[in-house]
């Protein structure tokens, strides 16, 4: 069980590094050796959706601050 969790956690870190744009060569190679493509696709789409929701809330918050 913990092995599966660890694998998803590593995938998440890999995806977030991709979002940020910086990843070390060592981790990248590990991801390619041990990770599975479908995991990256699922986590990637989830994170992209979270990012969109984050931007929506950010805009709402900015608008509420300025009283519009």
């Amino acid at each position, binding site marked *: 069980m913990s092995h599966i969790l660890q694998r998803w956690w590593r995938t998440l870190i890999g995806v977030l590094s991709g979002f*940020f744009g*910086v990843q070390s*060569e060592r981790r990248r190679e590990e991801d390619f050796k041990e990770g599975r493509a479908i995991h990256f696709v699922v986590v990637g789409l989830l994170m992209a959706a979270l990012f969109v929701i984050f931007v929506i809330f950010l805009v709402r918050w*900015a608008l509420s601050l300025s009283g*519009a």
Partner: protein
Amino acid sequence: MGMIRIISRSFPLTLLPLTARAEWTVNLSPGVTEISRSIYDLHMTIFWICVAIGCVVFGIMFWSIFHHRKSRGAKAHHFHEHTLVEVIWTLIPLGILVAMAVPATATLVKMYDPKDAGLDVQVTGYQWKWRYQYLDQDLDFFSNLATPQEQVTNDQAKSENYLLEVDRHLVLPTDTKIRFLLTANDVIHSWWVPALAVKKDAIPGFINEAWAQIDEPGIYRGQCAELCGKDHGFMPIVVEAVSPEEFQQWLVAAKAEKAAAAEAANRSWTLDELMQRGEQVYLGTCAACHQANGEGLPPAFPALKNSPIAVGDVGAHIDIVLNGKTGTAMQAFRDQLDPVELAAVITYERNAWGNSTGEAVSPTQIADRIGAAQGEGN
């Protein structure tokens, strides 16, 4: 030395207008509205941030090149990646961008909030003039370029406001929130007045919104900012900001003028009167395409001199001026000119440049034609 001499000989003009350069400003205008000033402040803040970044980055770069020069025995250090440095050079720009986004967002939110305006003005772009409609005021006029053609062709000295002057100013009150509703009649234009910090596309079939609250009375000039055809550079904007009291007086006077023009359509006009008025209208409204000498610029803009329409059936001539011609640049002038102006310009076209029909078209004839067309429409 030889090089300098060659340069100063080749480009003597670059050395001459030093006095002109002192007044030559390249920076953004601080403008005359709260929004324009905050845009100016943002622009300057971001400019100085860029200057600081430039100094730091190029400073480190030049120092590194100098300090680690080959003559001192410096050896390049070969490495492929450095995650910490990469994270730092990503986080610092991110922080700077967020810091700039905070004040910029505050200004943008204000710019896009046209609520609670005290005056609505519809601005419509035409090839190549602007139409201003004071909504709820029953006032509506076109604003045409006023610079004479002779200045464009260098037959006359250019005036101070060359190509930035119009026959009718857009008069607006100060200390009032004015909402602009922007659209266009033919192609995409853009209404741009730097001092008001308004630059908005005017698109056929769309209504864009913008607003301004002018703090200081004065004349503010602008131009069309979206390439819209042959005379894109010949459709300036002149905003005249006056105190709210003066604005009310101006409204009354402008409406009286409109009523007087309607009155003038009912009296009879002599051929000479029509010709005189017609020449003014022609030069302001028609000459851009059909040219002052009536010879046009074929094939796009046909000649009126000896043209079958200008010397043929008067009804057909009136119809084409009133309704334009589909598929060509010929616009419908029914709403752009009043009956007197229409009658005068048609009379002028039928009797100028050797066209000698001797016919005078009366304003009542035009009004009847418009009335008949409206009757058919209903």
